[in-house]
């Protein structure tokens, strides 16, 4: 019997009767992180990292039954030992290590290998079978160093100030927004937030995460308040009536998809910055090599191509279909994650 199986409800461990990031309601669910396509409502019992707790409660309800653990801590069910390890994706994100009778599997959820200074950095975990996303599993996806990207974002902000424009920068409310917030040059001016991002920031600050100061945009604010400022907004707010109050503005999106001209031009914003919380091509390959695993199971993203590539490199690689989405809704091309911002 396989230690982890891909079922209609999600990634399942039959020996322990536990699911990882299930997409249909189950009894017991280990949640890798708080994004909507990984933590869904309706499960009887949730297990997640300490830093994900408040986020998940805020989204799924304060009264859900949920227990938390730190990175490296273990618990055992029916002989199966579970532990969480940093995935470097967003605050609280974890890879799930599953061990039974000497067999080790790791389900990595979403991850990135570059340390972003906001969440705990990705740690490779030795295993026999590695379950990996491959959102950006093509060699055309190569992230520039984040220092370069932030330098570009900050100088864009400064230029907008000089041109008398408000800067509107978009990214997911959970994860990308905080990473942007921490990379912005706070000496340039005030950083404003959309309500959705404000709520996430509030939850994270309550959990003890230190974030740069922000000001919530409220209806009674005068237009002149925003002068020279930068507004952090979720993808769903771009092109909305809400955004009109910042006119004249220059708008930008920070996403891995901005690395290609097609999606960038399709979104037709003024600037696209290449910044992703998923591993790029080199990151995926390095992460896989570092696990020492021989069997690789690919989930969401460029699964077919990436799996073929891994097989050619000598891995026993297979693709499984899931209902995870990666980063698509960040450019309004996905279906799922959007929900959390509305």
């Amino acid at each position, binding site marked *: 019997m396989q230690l982890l199986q891909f079922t209609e409800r999600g990634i399942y461990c039959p020996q322990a009767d536990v699911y990882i990031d299930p997409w249909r309601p189950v009894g017991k669910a280990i949640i890798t992180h708080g994004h909507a396509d990984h933590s869904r409502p309706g499960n009887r019992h949730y297990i997640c990292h300490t830093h994900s707790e408040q986020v998940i409660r805020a989204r799924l309800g304060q009264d859900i039954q949920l227990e938390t653990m730190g990175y490296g801590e273990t618990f055992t069910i029916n002989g199966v030992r579970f532990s969480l390890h940093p995935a470097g994706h967003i605050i609280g994100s974890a890879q799930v290590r599953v061990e039974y009778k000497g067999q080790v599997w790791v389900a990595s959820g979403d991850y990135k290998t570059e340390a972003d200074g906001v969440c705990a950095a990705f740690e490779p975990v030795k295993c026999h079978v590695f379950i990996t996303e491959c959102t950006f599993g*093509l*060699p*055309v*996806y*190569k992230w520039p160093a984040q220092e370069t990207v932030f330098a570009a974002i900050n100088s864009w902000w400064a230029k907008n100030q000089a041109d008398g424009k408000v800067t509107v920068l978009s990214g997911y409310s959970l994860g990308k927004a905080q990473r942007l917030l921490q990379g912005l040059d706070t000496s340039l001016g005030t950083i404003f937030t959309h309500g959705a991002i404000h709520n996430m920031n509030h939850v994270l600050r309550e959990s003890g995460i230190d974030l740069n100061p922000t000001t919530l945009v409220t209806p009674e604010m005068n237009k002149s308040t925003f002068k020279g400022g930068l507004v952090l907004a979720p993808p769903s707010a771009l092109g909305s009536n809400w955004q009109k109050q910042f006119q004249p503005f220059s708008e930008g999106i920070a996403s891995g998809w901005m*690395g*290609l*001209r*097609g*999606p960038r*031009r*399709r979104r*037709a914003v*003024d*600037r*696209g910055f290449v910044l992703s919380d998923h591993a790029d091509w080199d990151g995926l390959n390095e992460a896989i090599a570092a696990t020492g695993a021989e069997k690789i199971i690919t989930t969401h993203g*460029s699964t*077919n*191509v990436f799996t*073929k*590539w891994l097989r*050619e490199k000598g891995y026993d690689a297979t693709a499984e279909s899931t209902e995870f989405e990666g980063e698509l809704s960040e450019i*309004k*091309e996905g*279906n799922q994650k959007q929900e959390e911002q509305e």
Partner: protein
Amino acid sequence: MRRFAQLFTELDQTTKTLQKVGAMADYFQEAADQDKLWAIALLSGRRPKRTIRTNLLKEWAAESAGIPFWLFEESYHIVGDLAETMAAIHPATNQHTDRSLTDWIDTIRNLRDAEDDAKKAAITAVWSTMDATERLVFNKLITGGFRVGVSQKLMVRALAKYSGTEENVLAHRLMGEWSPDNTTFQQLLFEENPKDQLSRPYPFYLAYAVEGQPEELGAPADWLAERKWDGIRGQLIVRENQLFVWSRGEELVTDKFPEFGELADILPSGTVLDGEILPFKEGAPLSFQVLQTRIGRKNVTAGILKKAPVVLVAYDLLEHNGEDIRHKPQVQRRKLLEQVVKAASDCTSKLLLSETVSFNDWEQLKIERSKSREYLCEGLMLKKKDAPYGVGRKKGGWWKWKVDPLTIDAVMIYAMRGHGIRANLYTDYTFAVWDGEKLVSFTKAYSGLTDAEIRKVDTFVKRNTIDRFGPVRSVNPELVFEIAFEGINRSTRHKSGVALRFPRMHRWRQDKSAAEANTLQDLHDLLNAYGPPDAP
């Protein structure tokens, strides 16, 4: 090159025309004259000849990136742009040299006669001295297809802003046969040289479509109406007994239409006609398809000339006795045009006049429009009697009033990813109609949906894939679209037996199930009703 790459990025980054014009004007201010000249050439579609085969480039790019060829191809499907794919997969590099745009173009052109190995060494060395943006621009130079969402009109506006010379004058100077090899920036834009003006065409005046009812245009008495002929727009120039024929794409096509050769001696020097090149036999136009068989050919053989002979149906006179008369009112130009055509008519059968359609009120004209298909026409043209001949697409003087398209409801059965701005989205679809229990494909269509609809269909495709063939997926036959098209013809190349002209998605029939789509018989009924009368 860094400055030109910056211009490329600025143009690519914005959709706002004002910013594009500003970016180009800044470039013209800062760049060296020879680089400016090349920039103008590239932005107006005059790219250097391709000196390296695309397949070799792909192989070298894959090799430089250390990936197998199939992975390169898969990446290309997703990116939808060859130059960009080759730029993106290349490993990051720290080396950097900055050579001028002209310098790089010379490098590329000098490779023409080199051995493949030498080409490979040169190109891969260049790649490793550039950042990703420069690499993209450089690759655009070697692969051709240099398109950055800048129309000739915008570039001319930027040049006007930079130089202070009028747009109309600049637009005219930039037309015709020139290349950075046989002119300089100063010469091209600021010197009048009558010798090389012989072949120079005028910018075409393009019409907008009538969106609502013609009544909105005002009094019928202010307007002329003509048939909208279904051929190729052409400008025919005779100066000093030399003939030049230009297509609307600003291509010199004189050699493709030897029929017009005789006009060089028949028309007076300094005559420029605007009209439609039409396949025409025994006093009547033939269907556009007849002309299509001839356009693609490299050599115009005697057989083709016999099967698909052409005439010019002239509808405007731009130059008369060597004088540019575009500023004169439509009716005056029309009068002179009639004289010119009449004078020539004794000596040639290749030049006809596009007759006006007389009418007293719009109702009468609507009836005329409804007869368009009988004349093998696309509809009517409306021209304001007192309007000058404009430059480019401008609202006001000319309107095209097309006949309503033919339509049929079809089921989507294949989807393919788009290119460029639509890369990585399934935007190109194949449609089928019912033949008994079977679906028979009969057309592809790419346009007509809104961005929101495209995203929905894209999601449908990804969730309803039956099979994959490279970039193409077959999908569950569920979605029904109303396909609109301008014409229908018999075809031996297609299983369905028909070929459509300008097919596009008119509406997504979300109210219809696949079973309610039209049948092959319906399609053939349209063919019999509206197709060409003569069976091939």
